């Protein structure tokens, strides 16, 4: 697992690119694999949620996400967290550049 973030601020708008290492695994009867996919992805900035996504196995392996939010400054921090259907979670804090 792992979260990579590139986040740049222009004027007061932050453009955030996330790359999350996760299999987003579908059920596969042939290989006996059970589903494992991110169900909830949240990004917070200064106590406010700025990105709320509920993905499914329809999102590709190692999800790539790009989004923008207002009210950002260089040096601010964002908090990225996800939870998958097996209860596994990951969280990280990243700087806006």
């Amino acid at each position: 697992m792992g979260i990579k973030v590139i986040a740049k601020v222009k004027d007061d708008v932050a453009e955030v690119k996330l790359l999350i290492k996760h299999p987003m695994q579908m059920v596969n009867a042939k290989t006996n694999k059970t589903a494992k996919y991110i169900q909830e992805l949240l990004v917070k900035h200064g106590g406010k949620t700025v990105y709320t996504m509920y993905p499914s196995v329809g999102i590709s392996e190692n999800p790539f996400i790009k989004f923008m939010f207002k009210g950002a400054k260089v040096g601010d921090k964002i908090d990225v967290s996800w939870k998958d259907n097996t209860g596994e979670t990951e969280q990280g804090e990243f700087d806006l550049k």
Partner: protein
Amino acid sequence: MQRRNFIKIGGFIALGVLSPSLYAGFLEDHAKAFTFKSAPEAMGDLYGQAKSAADSKVELKVPDIAENGGAVPVTISTTLPDVVEMSLFVEKNPYPLIAVWQINENTIPDFSTRIRMGETSNVVLVVKTKDGTLHTATKEVKVTVGGCGG
């Protein structure tokens, strides 16, 4: 009886005020939407009988042809005001509901991601505004090699 009505009304008001924080309960309320095998059923779970219509202010950017159905780039955006939610469907996928986004105060409704497509299909973007109406955009993507075999 009057007292009961008063409590009922009070409850509705409280629910209205608290609704932004109730977003945390989305999966409790709508996890089932992701399990439906047809797009209309999944949409029904999310939005009930709400009216929907194609809207030129809703933009869905997808390639005309995707060589790899395992990772099809998608950008969804809208210039509509008061957007509360966006959702994306691939009609012919085994589970058509791909994802749901909730729009917060500082969120700009313009997102990109990569999706799986099992075969050539319509992709449908639904944008819900504060008044409860649904605005949609639909595009077909031709898939050369499907991405739902994994």
